[in-house]
């Protein structure tokens, strides 16, 4: 349906009901020249094999276009020759079958994948643009891929594997054979009428049923509040009004749990929060009151001072449920959405970096253990990475920092965090729509995409989610968003608008509702350009079609703005105006379909008090007999996918675009892991931004308070390790949790909030923005409820005065001493070393009072360039950190654990404990004395524990378990072996 209607509305051919002669649909098949290398075929083969199809001899791919318009066979021939088929690599056939390659011989099965109607198809749209450009009048385009699979397998099995590996039922049709004909669907007529929903007479259960039937995701109490409001007004609500209320009152938009009242009880006693977030996380920020925080918790993203003239802002979003159902589209629109958050910060910020943190089920999970209705973690991972890649790279924003976590509990409900950082002039930080300003929407067209995204994100997933919620999934179109970015920055600098915001969850309803909160707005949704006809008023109003922004533009500036948009092929139109009557009026033409009081819309949500309880988790602290050697343990840790190399992911992202990369995700001659990213966002300036993160759900299984403290500490020390000034770091709190209507789950989030507050106050590090995604649960067919572990991501953003004074983690010069700064304790609880043995333990790492002093002292020694390499022990402890520093370089390291300061003396704890606030530093030999004096003066504990060796081997010695006095060798492994183990930890790539 889309394709047909799409060209309809964009070609400007009006005339409803005009005689439409049936034009032929031309088929064009394009394949590689015989004998060409077919990388897409090779990849498809790997994916099919992974999906369980055995005995594949070869796979090749060809594509098919279906074209309709005012054209004849000659035009199609020319379209192929000049545009659609490459003259060097490809051959084509018009209106007949392409001659198939002979392949390796033997039986061959064909299967074709094509986009469903209504789903964005950038390839088809590009073809239409390109062909129109050379004078071929094509109106409708559809494209498809046909896979030739040489295998003896039955057609049924090939098809089943293809559905799992090559297409996704949610957005694509996967059919056997090649597709010889295609019928473009006829557009349906638009329905224009005001529809009311009787609610005033409903009670209790009937209200809940209504909420469920309409997909509103509102609770009984909320439905009652709405009913009472309409009883007062004396009429029934319209469907658009109910939808608008549901969007605005959704957990996604209102954060009603975290901003709500909570009565908490745990071992520390009982306490009450009127507004949990305000009294914990925000409270710390208010208390700290940093002058360099320009905007906190009020806009799309928090803004901090960059260089006085410009600020930097950051936001992290989740897109968990869409990514579970359609990983590629879900993750792509996740990153697309958070980029729009940055575009819509203040009067518009320019994105300069992206980050991504994902949590999935174990990549090596046996297929039979994956619950019905969810995809294998590897498939989700591949799709998510591809989605972020294709969107972020096309936007020209470097993806520079991230993390990958694995746990069985993420299998049905993966976690996808996408972050974006922008830069914004100080004068543009504030915004305010004024009465009389036009409500202008620009960017993409509106379709049925993502209807009920905001409410969908607030319910649990189940095995049928895929089919029921497919409307919530969308495919992004990054180039449209890139065009929006180009226009937005030009318009901002020409001062053409007074306010701008993004269309995210809730679409126009949220964007206009938020911008007009204090003034009121009157809009006409029939003005919105549609992807296809037939949308109801409420659908246009709440559609979450991507790549759209809303701006408040003074009428006299509208012509300039429109001209700017026209010059760069960006669609812009006046949706209505901001009024001053504090009402939200929505019309479809002349029919008023919504008339809401802004006060009720934004403040009418009933407040309820929730109960929260907490008891510490974990299991008894295991005891281990001291062992003589730990070589195997270290190799096992490096081979864990969570610790192992993420190179397969990292290299698919452009981390260099905009020419600002200083410290990249991989570092050193041999490319080991970096602690944090450093980016210089202004061409010609040496000032930089540091980006890092802290996340460790395993500690949360013991105590989310400890987890939150440790996560802030980890983010801080990662940033400090590359050279950040701890006094200029801000953090973001990003929560992904289970159902917080359960007091025990809510209790864990209360603990985490308290941890965030205390860590922020301890480090003097303000929170500037946050995100919460609750109800991350998956119900299996057997009725088992799998809740994600409490997953707090702390994202840190800091400012670095001179990027030339940064530091990387790879070892630099043999002979330099290695110091371990900070104290090591008996803190193996939640550690990777325990996890490897499937234990949790009880001693989660704590953050202590001396932490800020350690951070400050280390940062100083790095800034003064005493330090040549810095790395923080985190996952896997000192042993893994030392290994990473060594194998990133072509040198080795010798480390003596007896010199490591702390409260524990046992080798296994010194090796693998994940105590916080520690650093491994390679110090310039000539500066060692000054370095030591500096740390002593600051009162920071440290030990000179080793040296960089020329021989590329990691040697770690410790106390003799038999009680002897001499050093006892615990680990001795050539770095090449460490590196190979680390690199092969995550098997994902099909190698050419």
């Amino acid at each position, binding site marked *: 349906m889309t394709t047909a209607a799409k060209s309809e509305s964009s070609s400007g051919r009006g005339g409803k009901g005009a005689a439409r002669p049936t034009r032929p649909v031309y088929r064009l098949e394009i394949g590689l020249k015989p004998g060409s*290398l077919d*990388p*897409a075929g090779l990849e498809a083969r790997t994916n099919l094999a992974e999906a369980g199809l055995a005995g594949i001899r070869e796979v090749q791919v060809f594509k098919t276009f279906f074209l309709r318009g005012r054209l004849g066979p000659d035009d199609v021939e020319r379209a192929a020759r*000049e*545009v*659609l088929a*490459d*003259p*060097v*690599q490809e051959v084509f056939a018009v209106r007949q079958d392409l001659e198939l390659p002979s392949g390796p011989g033997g039986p061959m099965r064909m299967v074709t994948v094509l986009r469903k109607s209504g789903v964005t198809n*950038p*390839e088809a749209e*590009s*073809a239409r643009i*390109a062909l129109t*450009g*050379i004078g071929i009048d094509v109106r409708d385009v559809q494209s498809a891929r046909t896979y030739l699979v040489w295998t003896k397998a039955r057609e049924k099995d090939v098809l089943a594997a293809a559905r799992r590996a090559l297409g996704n039922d949610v957005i694509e049709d996967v059919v056997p054979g090649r597709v010889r004909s295609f019928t473009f669907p006829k557009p349906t007529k638009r329905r224009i009428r005001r529809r009311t929903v009787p609610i005033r007479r409903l009670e209790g259960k009937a209200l809940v049923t209504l909420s469920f039937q309409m997909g509103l995701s509102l609770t009984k109490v909320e439905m009652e509040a709405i009913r009472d409001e309409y009883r007062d007004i004396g009429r029934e609500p319209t469907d658009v009004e109910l939808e608008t209320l549901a969007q605005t009152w959704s957990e996604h938009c209102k954060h009603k749990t975290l901003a709500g009242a909570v009565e908490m009880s745990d071992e520390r006693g009982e306490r009450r929060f009127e507004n949990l977030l305000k009294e914990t996380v925000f409270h710390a920020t208010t208390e700290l009151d940093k002058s360099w925080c320009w905007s906190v918790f009020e806009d799309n993203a928090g803004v901090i001072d960059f260089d006085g003239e410009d600020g930097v802002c950051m936001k992290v979003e989740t897109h968990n449920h869409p990514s579970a159902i359609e990983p590629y589209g879900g993750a792509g629109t996740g990153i697309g959405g958070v980029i729009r958050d940055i575009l819509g910060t203040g009067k518009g910020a*320019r994105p300069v970096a992206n980050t991504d943190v994902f949590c999935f089920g174990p990549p090596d999970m046996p297929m039979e253990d994956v619950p019905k209705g969810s995809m294998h973690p590897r498939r989700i991972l591949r799709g998510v990475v591809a989605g972020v*890649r294709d969107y972020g*790279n*096309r*936007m*020209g924003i470097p993806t520079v920092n991230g993390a990958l976590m694995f746990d069985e509990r993420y299998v049905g409900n993966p976690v996808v965090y996408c972050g974006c950082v922008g830069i914004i*002039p100080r004068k543009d930080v504030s915004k305010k729509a004024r009465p009389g300003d036009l409500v202008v929407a620009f960017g993409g067209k509106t379709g049925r995409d993502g209807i009920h995204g905001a409410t969908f994100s607030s319910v649990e997933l189940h095995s049928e989610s895929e089919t029921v919620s497919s409307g919530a999934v969308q495919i992004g179109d*990054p*180039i449209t968003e*890139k*065009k929006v970015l*180009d226009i937005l*920055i*030009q318009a901002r*600098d020409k001062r053409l608008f007074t306010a701008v915001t993004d269309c995210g969850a809730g679409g126009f309803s949220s964007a206009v509702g938020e911008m007009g909160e204090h003034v009121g707005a009157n809009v006409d949704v029939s003005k919105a350009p549609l992807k296809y006809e037939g949308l109801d008023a409420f659908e246009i109003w709440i559609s979450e079609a991507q790549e759209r922004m809303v701006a408040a533009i003074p009428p006299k500036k509208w012509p300039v703005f429109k001209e700017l948009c026209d*010059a*760069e*092929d960006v669609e812009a139109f006046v949706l209505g105006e901001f009024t001053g009557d504090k009402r939200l009026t929505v019309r479809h033409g002349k029919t008023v379909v919504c008339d809401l009081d802004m006060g009720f819309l934004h403040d009418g949500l009933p407040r309820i008090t929730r109960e929260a309880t907490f008891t510490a988790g974990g299991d008894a602290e295991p005891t281990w007999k001291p062992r003589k050697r730990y070589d195997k343990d270290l190799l096992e840790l490096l081979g864990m996918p969570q610790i192992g190399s993420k190179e397969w992911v*990292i*290299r*698919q*992202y*452009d*981390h*260099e*675009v*905009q*020419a600002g*990369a*200083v410290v990249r995700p991989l*570092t*050193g001659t041999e490319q080991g892991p970096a602690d944090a990213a450093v980016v*210089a966002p202004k*061409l*010609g300036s*040496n000032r930089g931004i540091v980006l890092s993160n802290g996340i460790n759900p395993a500690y949360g299984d013991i105590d989310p308070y400890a987890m939150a403290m440790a996560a802030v500490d980890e983010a801080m020390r990662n940033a400090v390790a590359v050279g950040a000034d701890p006094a200029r770091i801000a953090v973001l709190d990003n929560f992904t949790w289970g159902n917080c209507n359960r007091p025990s789950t809510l209790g864990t989030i209360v603990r985490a909030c308290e941890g965030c507050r205390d860590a922020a106050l301890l480090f003097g590090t303000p929170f500037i923005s946050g995100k919460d995604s609750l109800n991350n649960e998956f119900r299996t067919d057997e009725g088992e409820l799998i809740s994600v572990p409490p997953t707090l991501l702390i994202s840190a953003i800091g400012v670095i005065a001179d990027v*030339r004074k940064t*530091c990387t983690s*790879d070892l*630099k010069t043999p002979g330099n001493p290695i110091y371990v700064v900070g104290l090591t304790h008996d803190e193996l609880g939640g550690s990777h070393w325990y996890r490897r043995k499937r234990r949790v333990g009880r001693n989660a790492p704590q953050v202590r009072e001396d932490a800020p002093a350690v951070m400050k002292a280390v940062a100083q020694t790095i800034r003064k360039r005493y330090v040549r390499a810095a790395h923080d022990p985190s996952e896997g402890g000192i042993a893994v950190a030392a290994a990473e520093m060594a194998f990133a370089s072509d040198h080795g390291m010798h480390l003596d654990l007896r010199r490591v300061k702390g409260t524990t003396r046992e080798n296994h704890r010194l090796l693998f404990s994940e105590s916080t606030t520690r650093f491994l530093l390679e110090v310039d030999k000539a500066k060692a004395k000054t370095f030591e004096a500096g740390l002593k003066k600051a009162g920071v504990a440290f030990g000179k524990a080793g040296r960089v060796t020329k021989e590329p081997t990691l040697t770690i010695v410790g106390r003799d378990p038999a009680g002897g006095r001499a050093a006892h060798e615990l680990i001795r492994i050539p770095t090449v072996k460490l590196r190979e183990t680390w690199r092969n930890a995550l098997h994902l*790539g*099909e190698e*050419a």
Partner: protein
Amino acid sequence: MAARAKTRKRKRATKKSPTIRILVLRAPGTNCDQETGYAFEREGATVEHMHVNALLAQPKVLTRVHGLAIPGGFSYGDDLGAGTVLGTAMRTRLLEPIQRMVDKGGIVLGICNGFQVLVKTGLLPGFSAPDEPGILPGIAHETPERAVALASNIQNRYEDRWVTLKAVTDKCVFLRRGDVIHCPVAHAEGRLVCDDEVLDRMSAADQIALRYVAPDGESPVPFPYNPNGSVDDIAGITDPTGRILGLMPHPERNQFPWQDPRFHRGDAPRSPEGLLPFKNAMRHLRKTFA
């Protein structure tokens, strides 16, 4: 990007030397335009940024500039194959003015997506094909043959990594034989393919400009030194005049010393290697238009 429409001037251009104007083209999806323009400015050029719609409306602009840069990115999304839509538009509507600019001594630089676009226009390798009819009915200018393609990387995915390049031609004004440049590649479609006859022809005419080599200069090289499986390790080619260069890697991403991954080890050269093509080209233009 704030200064996108503006023209920046660098003080380095002394009064004596001629003003060299470089047009940096931008299409929907172009995303390396700022840093590419900046590299030219560092070498003294006056840079003008322009949207392709504006240039198509006024191709005459090309008569008053000395060079055209087509930066990296994903023009029009690259959903039809990298560079196809912009390449088609340029092939049909801008070939003649570009050819005229080059005839007068002007230069064209295509980086990454810009290279893919140049290949789609036929300007690279620039073999004339007088027999091929013009694309738009009624317009019959001489259209160069599209003789090479930049196909999907052998690993069939996008890859971002630093590579070592070696200049292997005497012909190209952007390069001096033996120049070694470290800079990153970041693309999904960069594997140069052509038939043997074309390869021989380019080779005989000294049009193979840049090869991927090992960090020690060794050649030929396997993956990942050759990051995409390109035939003969080819990273860039030039046209028969030597004034058009297309390359997949991004020299503009190594224009500040701290961009070089060797920087933190203290091994990065003082003068960033990525500036070499810009320096050489500007030297040529100053000489030509003095």
